[in-house]
């Protein structure tokens, strides 16, 4: 759905994005992670043809960008760096205006489309007050509605839950999951690890303009080969599994055993009481921080 090769953008002497090879496949919810200023937004803008690349190729929906903007962008819904709309118009009038800019189909269909998009983001019941009276959360929802207008095959969303309350965040997450289930590929740029962890199937991490990770989330969160155990019978466990207990903190233990089921059986057999037992997994946070630091280190060396 999105493929870039050697994508590079320089602003004067500053390299904002450096030889990026993105690969977003059909059906992904791709989490594009990176700290502020890492080049996420510049990349998103290049994908949409807003910023012109210094060098490298971009293909979106298997067509070259920005050359094929006219045939690609009608199938792409985008939210870039926060929502924006005309302040003197109502939310509905705004969507109608944006929809009419690249008009297709009959007017009645288009108005129905606007209503459907408002309904999807929970603004269906909203009155006709002008946009300047909207709250931040309502604007965010309107921005997402704008992205959904054309029932896009690909959604490119930059910080979609910004400014929403927990309830709103959950609604938008559910909406994205249902769109994904219906076949929409989602490219979600964010600096919120938790959001990406909850939603995404694949993750790309950008650090100072370089892609340091691009991997399926499951692979990143693979087991570490250790098992976490919480028990009141710490001494008993220690004697039973001599030398395999790596970390010991109060009633919590980390044990160098990868097969949690087998460990459980042994503990039960020995009469050890167990509160909790689970295989330890790499967390996205650890992986991202490690990769980002490694990336920074490489840059410092070169």
């Amino acid at each position, binding site marked *: 759905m999105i493929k870039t090769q050697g994508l590079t953008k320089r602003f004067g002497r500053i390299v904002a994005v450096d030889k990026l090879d993105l690969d977003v496949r059909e059906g992904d919810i791709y989490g594009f992670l990176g700290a502020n200023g890492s080049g996420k937004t510049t990349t998103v*803008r290049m994908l949409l043809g*807003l910023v012109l690349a210094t060098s490298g190729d971009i293909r979106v929906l298997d067509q070259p960008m920005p050359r094929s903007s006219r045939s690609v962008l009608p199938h792409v819904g*985008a939210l*870039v760096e*926060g929502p924006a709309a*005309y302040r*003197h118009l109502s939310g509905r009038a705004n969507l109608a*205006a*944006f929809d009419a*800019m690249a008009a297709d189909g009959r007017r009645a269909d288009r108005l129905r489309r606007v209503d459907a998009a408002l309904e999807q983001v929970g603004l269906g019941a909203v009155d006709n007050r002008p946009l300047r009276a909207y709250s931040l959360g309502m604007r965010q929802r309107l921005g997402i509605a704008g992205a959904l207008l054309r029932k896009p095959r690909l959604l490119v969303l930059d910080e979609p839950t910004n400014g929403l309350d927990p309830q709103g965040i959950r609604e938008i997450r559910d909406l994205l999951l249902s769109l994904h289930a219906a076949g929409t590929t989602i490219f979600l740029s964010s600096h919120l690890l938790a959001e990406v962890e909850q939603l995404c199937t694949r993750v790309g991490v950008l650090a100072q303009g370089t892609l340091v990770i691009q991997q399926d989330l499951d692979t990143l969160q693979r087991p570490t080969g250790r098992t976490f155990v919480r028990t009141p019978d710490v001494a008993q466990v220690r004697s039973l599994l001599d030398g395999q207990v790596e970390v010991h903190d109060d009633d919590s233990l980390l044990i160098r055993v990868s097969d949690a089921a087998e460990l459980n059986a042994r503990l039960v057999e020995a009469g050890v009481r167990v509160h909790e037992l689970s295989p330890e997994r790499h967390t996205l946070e650890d992986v991202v921080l490690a990769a980002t630091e490694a990336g920074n280190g490489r840059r410092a060396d070169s």
Partner: protein
Amino acid sequence: MIGVELHKMVRDRRTWVTIGLLDALPTLVAILLAVTDLGPRPGTGPAFLSAVLADGKLFPLAAIAIVLPLFMPAAVAVVAGDAIAGEAQSGTLRYVLVRPVGRTRLLVAKLVSVVSFVLLAVLVVAATAYITGSLLLGNQSIAATTTSVSGTALSTQELAGRTGLALVYAILSMLGVAAIALFLSTVTESPLAAALGTLAVLIASTLLLTLDAATSLHPYLPTRYWLSFVDLFRDPILWRNVGRGAGLQAAYVAVFLAAAWANFTTKDVTD
């Protein structure tokens, strides 16, 4: 896209406030003249103003002559300067472009909208002035003759035709301003900077026109021939400056629109 832009302009309260303000000055002048009966002496003050006390039908021309040096270009600079920069500042530019609206198409739509504004502004000012002129000022010319600037008589028909030409000329003069402002609007992300930049160009031009050392530049300055529409009311019409003015404005429009296009279509939209 053109329809959307026109709709937006017509729906925007600012458009009508601007035109209203633009209209206020000539109306005030008409009221003052009617109340005091004190016109400027012939040959002084804004063009045609000395004649309107006798003939109110000349007031549309006087009104144009009143607003053309400053009010009208300021309004056009504000509206045209807002065209792209305003969208950039409010953040809507990126959403318009990914809709997708091609950059060239957006620029054309903005241009049409700005031109419509100029047309609307000039026509509203002229129409209001016609009404206030007929109601408040002299209607000596019921006998169907008006005196041309050269002193010969003009029939009502001739007067109407020449007034039409003068309005076209005024509109053309403002299109030059619009082209400069539209170009600056693609350069900066601040509509204010684009409008002020345009006004700076016009003020510089006006200033250089008073400077003998700049004589060689005079024929190329954008404001040089603005008031030459007066020549349309000489008998016979003195075409020389009107023609030069039209050519000069056409050149400004062509050059700055080309520059606006070249700049906007290759620009990184990072607002």
